[in-house]
């Protein structure tokens, strides 16, 4: 069975600095998708970034980028130039036929 692990329950970063959130997963599949979602206090799940496993190039979306290491089954999220609005819970997720398996989340605080 697939599992997703986020080993950092909480993290904090100074505004304008860079922070990296860790995620590891376990699967025997070769083709799959990985996602990072942001959940602010409103509780809405907002897609941050997506990575397709068969693509070697790391995905980027503006200030957000991933370091995808397929062999190591690692999928970390880097947030550059952190902003106060980045304060939220971040979830890593593995896509299994449309069903998502989530990590336990990392609560990120951006401090002014």
């Amino acid at each position, binding site marked *: 069975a697939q599992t997703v692990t986020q080993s950092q329950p909480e993290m904090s970063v100074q505004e304008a600095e860079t922070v990296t959130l860790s995620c590891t997963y376990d699967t025997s599949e070769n083709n799959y*998708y990985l996602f990072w*979602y942001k959940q602010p206090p*409103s509780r809405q*799940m907002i897609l941050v970034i997506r990575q397709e496993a068969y693509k070697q190039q790391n995905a980027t979306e503006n200030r957000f980028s991933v370091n995808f290491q397929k062999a190591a089954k690692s999928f970390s999220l880097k947030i550059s130039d952190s902003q106060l609005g980045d304060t939220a819970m971040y979830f890593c997720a593995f*896509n299994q036929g*449309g069903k*998502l398996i*989530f990590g336990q989340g990392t609560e990120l605080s951006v401090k002014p």
Partner: protein
Amino acid sequence: SAVISQKPSRDICQRGTSLTIQCQVDSQVTMMFWYRQQPGQSLTLIATANQGSEATYESGFVIDKFPISRPNLTFSTLTVSNMSPEDSSIYLCSVEDRGLSGNTIYFGEGSWLTVV
């Protein structure tokens, strides 16, 4: 990207009652998914709602407690039956968008239920 509307956004429910949550998508999708997020926890899949057939439930979730309807390709409902305080959670629906650029999963705004 798919736009998903969920109702209600919040509700306070009496113990023993049932509540139905609606999920509307702006495009036709094959599968819709229902998740539960208990306080301070991650999301857990309840079931997959299939159009034209019964929903498929994950381990630990049963149809009598969480009946699901899927009358067409853009709409689904989840009922939380005979509620107890342990059912106080956020319930979210999601869809998989299989676009030309690949598969993406989108969520509705969530329904925050408090059972008293």
